[in-house]
């Protein structure tokens, strides 16, 4: 069998297949965890684990990624399941946004990618900003009711207190638990991977057909020198490239064109919001909520990176 010759539309397939193959194992991991939670974690157990009051609970949720380190593809099915298990929405959203950044694997990869380039500062800035913004988003979102935020079908699956009591009453053999966990895992995987494929498809078209065009790149390079626009441009790049949070630092660390604060914006915004995530989030959240979340995260990351810019080693040129 001979391969098709390289072509402009062939570029889309190469990018599509490579991101897909990279992401599928992580979506499976997330789905399996979701299945295990569904089968073995009694509903409402999260209530007992987390602090009772709203704010401490949200603050604690932002740190859950340390115990359970996952990237952004894997976290979405887990969050959907945890919400249905009764995890308060503010906590769930904070965990979802923070986990891909506030976790040891990502911290380690960020540190090694930036080695020799102020790695300690860059890594701690990334983790701190990611945490703070995720907490902020969690606090804001917790002010709204679940009915206004969640997709109806997620809402429909939320366990009520009575049901958890019923579940605790019905004994379950480990074998049943495994069957049930894998059943749920497959269901979650099929759901999530469908949206992932759509997101990756669009991202592949955008980056092979659009992003590296000479004219566009020429303007990006001009913008890179602009104090105010560099960060938004890299955030846009993070959005289009849809990289995994465990590897994105390697892609951007080596770039000598952009200032450290713009790279930081790239590293904080990307794991929280990108093209593939729009579609993954839509398995949990209503489209309107995703839109406002995007806008809020964009502004928050931009303002935060501009604010801490003086602390970073290679400041942007002043206007």
């Amino acid at each position, binding site marked *: 069998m001979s391969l098709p010759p390289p072509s402009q539309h062939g570029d889309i*397939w190469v990018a599509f297949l490579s*991101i897909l193959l990279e992401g599928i194992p992580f979506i499976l991991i997330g789905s399996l965890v979701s299945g295990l939670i569904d089968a073995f974690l*009694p509903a409402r157990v999260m209530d007992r684990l987390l602090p009772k009051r709203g704010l401490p609970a949200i603050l604690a949720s932002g740190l859950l990624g340390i115990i359970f380190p996952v990237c952004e593809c894997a976290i979405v099915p887990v969050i959907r399941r945890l919400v*249905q298990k009764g995890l308060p929405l503010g906590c769930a959203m904070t965990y979802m946004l923070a986990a891909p950044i506030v976790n040891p694997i990502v911290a380690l990869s960020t540190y090694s990618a930036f080695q020799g380039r102020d790695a300690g500062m860059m890594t701690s800035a990334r983790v701190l900003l990611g945490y703070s913004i995720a907490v902020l988003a969690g606090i804001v979102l917790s002010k709204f009711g679940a009915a206004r935020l969640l997709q109806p079908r997620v809402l*429909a699956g939320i366990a009520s207190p009575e049901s958890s009591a019923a579940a605790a009453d019905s004994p379950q053999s480990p074998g049943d638990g495994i069957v049930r966990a894998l*059943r749920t895992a497959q269901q979650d995987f099929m759901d999530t991977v469908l949206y992932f494929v759509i997101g990756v498809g669009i991202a592949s078209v955008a980056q092979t057909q659009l992003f590296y065009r000479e004219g566009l*790149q020429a303007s990006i390079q001009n913008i890179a020198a602009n104090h105010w626009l560099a960060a938004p441009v890299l955030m846009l790049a993070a959005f289009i490239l849809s990289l995994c949070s465990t590897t994105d630092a390697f892609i951007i660390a080596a770039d000598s064109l952009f200032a450290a604060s713009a790279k930081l914006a790239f590293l904080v915004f990307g794991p929280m919001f990108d093209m593939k995530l729009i579609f993954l989030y839509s398995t949990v959240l209503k489209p309107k909520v995703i839109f406002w979340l995007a806008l809020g995260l964009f502004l928050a990351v931009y303002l935060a990176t501009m604010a801490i810019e003086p602390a970073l080693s290679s400041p942007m040129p002043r206007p």
Partner: protein
Amino acid sequence: MKTPQPPHSHASCSHGCSHDHKHDHKHDHHDHHDHAHTPTPATAATDSPESSDDSAWNQQFLLFLEMLVLIMIAAVIAYFIASGRIDGAAPNMPYLQGYFKILALIGGLALAVMGIFNFLMRRRAVGCSHDHDHHDHDHSHSHSADCSHSHDHDHSSCTHDHSHQKDAATCCSHDHSHDHSTETAAHAHHHHGSPMGRAAALLFLSGSITAAAVLTPDEFSPRYMEQKARALMGRSNGAAPESAAPVPAKALADATATGSGLTLALVEKYQPRNKDGNFELGVMQLYYSGSDEEYARVMKDQPVETIGQVVKDEVVPGANRLRVFVLQVTCCAADARPYSIPVVFDGPLPEYQEMGWYKITGTVNYADERGVRTAVLKASSITPSLRPKDQRATF
């Protein structure tokens, strides 16, 4: 709330009904559901036992399809890895790099196992620990109105029904003795839209992956590589990743052990010269050689040869300057970046073709470029070359 569905969708009657109970019980949709729609005789009449059998059959068939799709994904991954196509057709441009390949293989196999397991276990009823909150609910919705209204909101909220086992048809014939605490795969848990919708989703999924596997050329077009290379050229600096460590780890270990520091003899021991007396180094190795001070000191003025693609140097423009680069993937092909070093000639530039592959021979030197110590190749010759089959091996 919604317009009644056409008769063909009545297969999901049982799911819809049991679900309604839960919703009516828990949520405030209740009012909308209960009285909004008057069932037409035709609707009620089509809710026959056969339709519930259809539903069960649909669910089983969908599980079967899911298994096939999962096995297909696994097969595509396994094929790309087994055939070596995962490494791409162009040098340095694999679909997946390093351990991501292993991860993909394990993930693929796990997918197939999961699909087969779930299909084989489809009849097994297991305790369902969530949203069976209708134990104490009155199930005697004895008129067929319930049935038809259940269809009406099938797509909006009917996504989590944990329905009755085998007595699906009883939805409309008001025998509610079913056991709500168990479910089988074929009868429940698959409630994300209609069977048709889910089949379409599976078709889309398998179709797009098949299309990608069949239509991919395994390498980017020269046009795209050039666009990307030019856009990012000269924008890389920083420490070497493990894969491109400039000095073989053993040489460094020896140097540390003897306490003598790195010497040319040690470098030669682990990085032998070719018959012409040149070190054969990849562009990546040369590129990163500047980041290790000791290695740069030892390598300065040594004869080397390297193979890469050549373009005019636009990073530091000059009449006698070219740039040799390779694209390098960190994790997946979509993240490929060019890594380049300047090539300087004594006299005017020789004839060359932009983006062509060349073998360049010369000596290494180091210069400051944008504040970073960078390897510069003082070229003595440049000859057209086939692109290396696998430059990864040289890292």
